[in-house]
């Protein structure tokens, strides 16, 4: 199937909202595919890298419309095997740069704000925190932690109210969610426990099937829908699909809450370009044999708060890095806080890089400076 020949009925297998979106913009998709606005010379220049890539004719027959993940998997394997992966990567990167230059993104309506809350359940920690971020921001060592979580959630809710954008303001919780505004899109590891359990049950069943290999399993996981994992139809279909993908596409999200929070933050930024993203990490279960972790056989597994703090500290770094890839990064702001303690770090305009402050200030007040 060539992109220029796309027809609406070919998307009948898509979820309703996705079908609506794609068929409404099919002309734009075709136009993009044909790149009619470019001259022949420009098209040659834009796509020279891709043109050098050779794929076998059999790939034309693959149903990439209805099985995009399977197609990507096969294409990726072929590119690696034929040593074309680096050339493809180069062509794709160059194409992305051209596309961004040709169609710059819209300005963001409000300064993007990231908040990472790490170290839940850790009474004391002597090693330095936020090491990857300190060179970029101001480290505070005398923050007033009182009501910190509530203040940060309230600030996120306030932004959601002032700048209502669908899926624009998120609260990602690595454990049990606390009370929060319904204006925030909430994704919680604990709330998704039944979905996770159902997925692990399916994985266990799949791997026992004869002939099952890792690639086959991944292909099967990619086909799972919210209904397959027991999510009812009364929820938000878009969000449900997003949550299923966190488990079926993420690695380690199925077993460690810290990985789940890290990956969810990445995906909320990448897919939804969140304007506000508050991520609260929670203690993950202690490491056990992989088969045991995947069997989900312990209803109340032992937790490992200290190691989880190390995971979350790195997770906060990735949260900021991923945020900085989005439009408006020059003005965006980021705050990371050691929950319940007096240590925090801020990266934002007007905050000096690589500095330390002993100002005694509440998190709410600090955030009012940060968010602008």
């Amino acid at each position, binding site marked *: 199937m060539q992109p220029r020949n796309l027809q609406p009925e070919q998307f009948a297998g898509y979820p309703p909202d996705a079908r609506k979106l794609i068929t409404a913009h099919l002309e734009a998709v075709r136009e993009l595919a044909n790149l009619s606005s470019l001259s022949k010379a420009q098209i040659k220049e834009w796509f020279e890298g891709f043109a050098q890539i050779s794929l076998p004719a059999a790939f034309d027959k693959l149903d990439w419309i209805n099985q995009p993940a399977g197609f990507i998997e096969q294409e990726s394997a072929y590119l690696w095997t034929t040593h074309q992966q680096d050339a493809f*990567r180069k062509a794709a990167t160059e194409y992305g740069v051209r596309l961004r230059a040709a169609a710059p993104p819209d300005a963001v309506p409000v300064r993007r704000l990231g908040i990472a809350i790490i170290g839940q359940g850790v009474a004391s920690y002597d090693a330095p925190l936020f090491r990857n971020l300190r060179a*970029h921001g101001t480290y505070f060592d005398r923050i007033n932690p009182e009501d910190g979580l509530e203040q940060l959630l309230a600030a996120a809710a306030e932004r959601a109210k002032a700048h209502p954008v669908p899926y624009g303001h998120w609260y990602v919780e690595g454990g049990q969610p606390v009370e929060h505004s319904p204006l925030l899109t909430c994704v919680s590891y604990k709330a998704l426990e039944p979905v996770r359990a159902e997925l692990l049950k399916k994985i266990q069943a799949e791997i026992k099937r004869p002939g099952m290999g890792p690639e086959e399993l991944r292909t099967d996981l990619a086909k799972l829908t919210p209904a397959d994992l027991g999510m009812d139809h009364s929820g938000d279909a878009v969000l449900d699909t997003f949550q299923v993908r966190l488990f079926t596409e993420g690695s380690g*999200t199925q077993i460690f809450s810290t990985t789940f929070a*890290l990956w969810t933050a990445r995906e909320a930024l990448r897919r939804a370009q969140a304007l506000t993203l508050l991520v609260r990490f929670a203690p993950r279960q202690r490491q056990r044999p992989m088969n045991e972790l995947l069997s989900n056989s312990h209803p109340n597994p032992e937790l490992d708060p200290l190691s989880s703090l190390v995971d979350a500290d790195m997770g906060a770094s990735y949260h900021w890095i991923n945020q900085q890839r989005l439009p408006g990064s020059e003005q965006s702001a980021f705050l990371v806080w050691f929950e319940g303690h007096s240590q925090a770090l801020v990266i934002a305009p007007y905050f000096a890089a690589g500095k330390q402050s002993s100002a005694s200030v509440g998190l709410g007040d600090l955030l009012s400076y940060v968010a602008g």
Partner: protein
Amino acid sequence: MNQTSVNRALTAELSAKAGASPQEIAWGLSRSRREFLRGAAGVVLGSTLMGGSPLLRGETVRKKRKVIVVTFGGGARDQETFAPEGQENIPHMLQELAPQSSFFTHVTNRGILGHYVATASLATGVYETLNNFSAVPPQHPTVFEYFRKDLKRPISDAWVVAPSNGFNRIGESDSRQFGPGMGAQVILPKHLLSAARSGATADFDHLLRDNYETPYYTPQLGGGEFELRQLEQILKLSVNDFMAHARAVSSPDELSIYIVKRLMKQEAPSLLWLTMHDIDIAHSGAYSLYIEAIQRTDRLCAELWQAAQSEPEYAGNTTLFVLPDFGRDADYDSGGNGFQHHRTGDAASRTTWMMALGAGVRQGVVYDEPMQSIDLVPSLGALMGFSPSLSQGTPIRGLF
């Protein structure tokens, strides 16, 4: 608060890195390793040295020479190892091994970045294209086959200790030039343990972790894997002794080191290949576990070198090579997720390092001339006196 351009700085950093060519980034990584090593471990730049190689090539020496190759299946990045912020994780490699080593800062893997296929490529000197998740033999002759055939060495003289069940065919290719039985014997400690415990107890589950990239999958075993009866015949260990020791170790790689030490004592092979794998826990996304594994691997490498110094068959005539099979994705590459995977093919995931130390190797020298991971096999050939005719690499300058 003072006005600052923090975000501008990061944006510039990300843009610069995104705009730099992979070659430029690889060179940057190499230079950073060099400068760090020169400061932290007191090594000197290789190009400043004059004169011929100290490697001894006489036939008598060659017959006694032992070579141990240690690869990390699950590479570690510079910021967690050979960079200022990572040095706390590798005190043994940095303070004990690097000062004794010729350290190669710029090793590139241009092949497929999957652990089995990459290790197979290291062992054949050709970028293999086999299915990473299948228990299939390498497509090209292995270093073990060249070694045994050319030097007429017995089967007991080449061994592989490998971490995961998928590696059970790594010892011997399906090349027609060599035929069956010309490769190395392979020990899979997990398989050995699994057989020894006969499913009787779950005490050892933590040592049976397998492929972290696809933790749910274990390939079916086949081929010439080590049989349980050989536990007693080769390693001179009773099942009870083995189980007692297994109970005392905390990770699969610790168990592998134990097996390697037994092999050194009982068989004293001239070519011994160990692939470690604990670091690949990074695929689970838990940074703390990745760091713990690096620290453990660092300790085990030093422990292995100490064991070589204390074994009469190895002391003074052993050359040790340590290298990751490849790196891991850089933080700034949007196609990956940093330390967790090695899927982008970016410079950080393709560029790594190698350390060579012991008999005939210059001590405390750092080389940053580019080399490829497939150069290892021809270098071993030059060192041990066999001819890896189908290898596509070239002997490493600096060693010779």
